[in-house]
């Protein structure tokens, strides 16, 4: 079903069209919020919050092509908020602050994430893992471990990689930069 037909269906109160959106985007949304190191419970809240904001904002949809970027922008905002709160204070309530709520429900035209969305396809996933297979250690093991144990904490991951906990974050950052560089080089190759 095309984006336009799906959105037309959603705006016409068609649950089947909504289910199509859910089937298409919930997996990638889940992966994106989990990448913020959220627990399964917090990740579930972030994904639910994203769909709730869409229900709140349905009437503002003008360009169906922007619905994907909008969903991911909103999910990242919800995940970042939860991640910050979880690391910092233990709150009774998470009142989406005024700025957050307004921007989340703002014009769909503000969502720009196309290059990032392109990476969340099966083809890109295969390309990424091919690149990882060509990487040196510790990056190769780090990515394999990180993907296979999404609930493992930093201490556990660092221990299994044989490095101090304090080294895990910087090493992960360097490995991600290297992976990006490899992808950029491949893009540049005709």
């Amino acid at each position, binding site marked *: 079903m095309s984006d336009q037909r799906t959105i037309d269906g959603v705006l016409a109160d068609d649950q089947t069209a909504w289910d199509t959106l859910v089937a298409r985007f919930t997996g990638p949304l889940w*992966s994106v919020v989990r990448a913020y190191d959220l627990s399964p419970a917090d990740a579930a809240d972030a994904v639910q919050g994203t769909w709730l904001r869409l229900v709140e904002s349905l009437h503002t949809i003008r360009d169906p092509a922007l619905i994907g970027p909008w969903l991911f922008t909103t999910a990242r905002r919800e995940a970042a908020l939860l991640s910050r709160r979880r690391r910092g204070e233990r709150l009774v309530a998470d009142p989406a602050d005024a700025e957050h*709520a307004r921007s989340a429900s703002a014009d769909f035209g503000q969502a720009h994430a196309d290059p990032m969305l392109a990476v969340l396809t099966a083809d890109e996933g295969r390309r990424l893992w091919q690149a990882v297979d060509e990487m040196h250690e510790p990056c190769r093991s780090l990515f394999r471990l990180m993907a296979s144990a999404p609930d493992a904490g930093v201490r556990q991951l660092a221990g299994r990689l044989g490095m101090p906990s304090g080294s895990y974050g910087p090493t992960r950052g360097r490995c991600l930069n290297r992976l990006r560089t490899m992808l950029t080089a491949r893009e540049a190759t005709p």
Partner: protein
Amino acid sequence: MTRHPSTIDDEFLIAALRLASGSDPVPARVTEAARAVFGLRLPGAATAHPMATPVPRGVRSTGQPQLLRFGAGELTVELEVSSLDGLVDLAGQISPCPDAGALVEIRTLHVVESRRLSPTGQFAVTGLPPGWFSVVCHRPERSPVATSWTRIRP
């Protein structure tokens, strides 16, 4: 198509790696909840957005109720949120007080509670499940006003 991988941030790279590895599938309850959310739409309702409150944002939980304030046009919804034994209590005030016959619905993903407003525009509900909630004010012959969905975790 040019994808500009250098603009892909860490979270998207990690998400793409995990998605392709298939080792972190979406729990069925997350997908079910996403489908069910469609039943919570309120055509024609105005959204009341969060407004600044006297309580500083990011304040630590001290067991004291937290004050939330939402506004849409001239209507303000103020909520005192407190939690006990893992459940959530809300005490609310709608200002200005709507005409007689106004009804408040407190919606979560799982339950909907209805309350008649007191003559001064107050209402209360106790024992809500933690998670997302929204308060809807239904007024006679006027569009409903719904507070922006807000998350509570005791």
